[in-house]
């Protein structure tokens, strides 16, 4: 049986890992390669790198990080943040990224999903959706959550599947940073509507939260701060999940 995955997220700025809450109070938190290797040793199943470097000119720094990570990592990793073209995707994959994710550019030009899927295959393309409940529906946001788009996230999830997304990285802006658990109602609604794997993101604060996300149908659950701060080790969370009957990969 396919294992449910635990994914660690690293925010990258100018080639360094940064920590902060919602793009504020950024602090340097180390070298991405070193941190990725540390998480691999703790048994993480996958790593997602989100590049938050503002300028397009500094793209080469990210490409270099990807190459260095690919050279040493022996688990899969995904890269995204500000990707706008098939050419950028090709460059990242060529340097060794296993998958890429797109967000803003896909909302602005949905055809981009189809184009990327054609070049690198559906299996390697993740579409990230940032959603926030606006009182009547879960609204899609872009630009790192700064821009509301008047698009229903549930409909958008279906659409990206049709266009060729292989997975959806679903971040709830309502639960993100709260550490009170993933957004289970949102997760359930999306899982109900699509067949492709869903990565739950936003709100992880304890091992139980991961269990709840998997029970709601998530194929993977992503977290950042609880791993960065060393509050829980990944293998500790996996052992808990295994006891609860969730299929997880545990290295001996």
């Amino acid at each position, binding site marked *: 049986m*396919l*294992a449910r*995955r635990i994914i660690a997220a690293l925010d990258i700025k100018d080639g360094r890992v940064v920590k902060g809450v919602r793009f504020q109070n950024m602090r340097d938190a180390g070298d991405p390669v070193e941190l990725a290797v540390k998480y691999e040793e703790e*048994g993480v199943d996958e790593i997602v790198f989100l590049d938050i470097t503002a300028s397009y000119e500094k793209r080469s720094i990210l490409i270099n990080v990807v190459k260095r990570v*690919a050279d040493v990592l022996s*688990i899969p990793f995904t890269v995204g943040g500000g990707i706008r073209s098939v050419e950028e995707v090709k460059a990242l994959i060529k340097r060794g990224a296993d998958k890429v994710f797109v967000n803003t550019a896909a909302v602005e030009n949905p055809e981009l999903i189809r184009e990327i899927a054609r070049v690198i*295959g559906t299996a390697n393309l993740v579409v990230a959706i940032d959603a926030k409940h606006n009182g009547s529906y879960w609204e899609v946001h872009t630009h790192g959550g700064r821009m509301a788009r008047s698009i229903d996230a549930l409909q958008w999830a279906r659409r990206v599947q049709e266009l060729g997304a292989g997975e959806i990285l679903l971040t709830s802006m309502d639960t993100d940073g709260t550490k009170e658990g993933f957004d289970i109602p949102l997760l359930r609604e999306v899982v109900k509507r699509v067949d492709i794997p869903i990565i739950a993101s936003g709100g992880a604060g304890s091992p139980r939260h991961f269990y709840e996300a998997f029970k709601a149908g998530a194929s993977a659950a992503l977290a950042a701060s609880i791993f960065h701060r060393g509050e829980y080790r990944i293998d500790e969370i996996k052992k808990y999940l295994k006891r609860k009957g969730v299929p997880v990969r545990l*290295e001996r």
Partner: protein
Amino acid sequence: MIGVLDLGIGNIENVRRAVDGIIVKDSYGIERTEKLIFPGVGNFGEIAERVKELKPSLLDFIGDGKPFLGICLGLHYLFKGSEEQPEARGLNVFPGKVVAFGKKGIPHIGWNQIFIRKEHPLLQGIENGSYFYFVHSYYVKEVPDDYILAETEHLTENIATRFPSAVAMDSIYGVQFHPEKSGKVGLRLLKNFRRL
């Protein structure tokens, strides 16, 4: 010396590093190595096209009885052809065929278990039920039982497909998963191949 075949698609540095080998790009490089790893990424047609000129060298290499390990598409390439690109031709050195999951070739992505069918040095130190990383939409079937080292099960459209995930025949080896992306057990398998 162990060679890792580079067809210019993707990064194979982590495979090279795991086996402490060298990158090989041409016939000369293939002839010089004692063992060869063919890490396939992309699609069958593309691989077949890129490797065309090297095909005679690969067949000689295998014919000489030198250990050859095909990974993912590299495994598929050992067969006559693949449903992925019916007109493209593989090496045709392994009995069986390469077919799609379900009608649409639904991808099998993620960490899945291997169930060991046969004791073999390639799987030494790897426990039954270990998780490896898979990314593929096509799989090998009709491989004679004697050559199946391990199997894996994938659920598509509510049908469980059990397929060979590690095979061996004489000095020809193939794995459907990506050992270079499978953490410690994957590195163990690559080291086992190095020691064969």
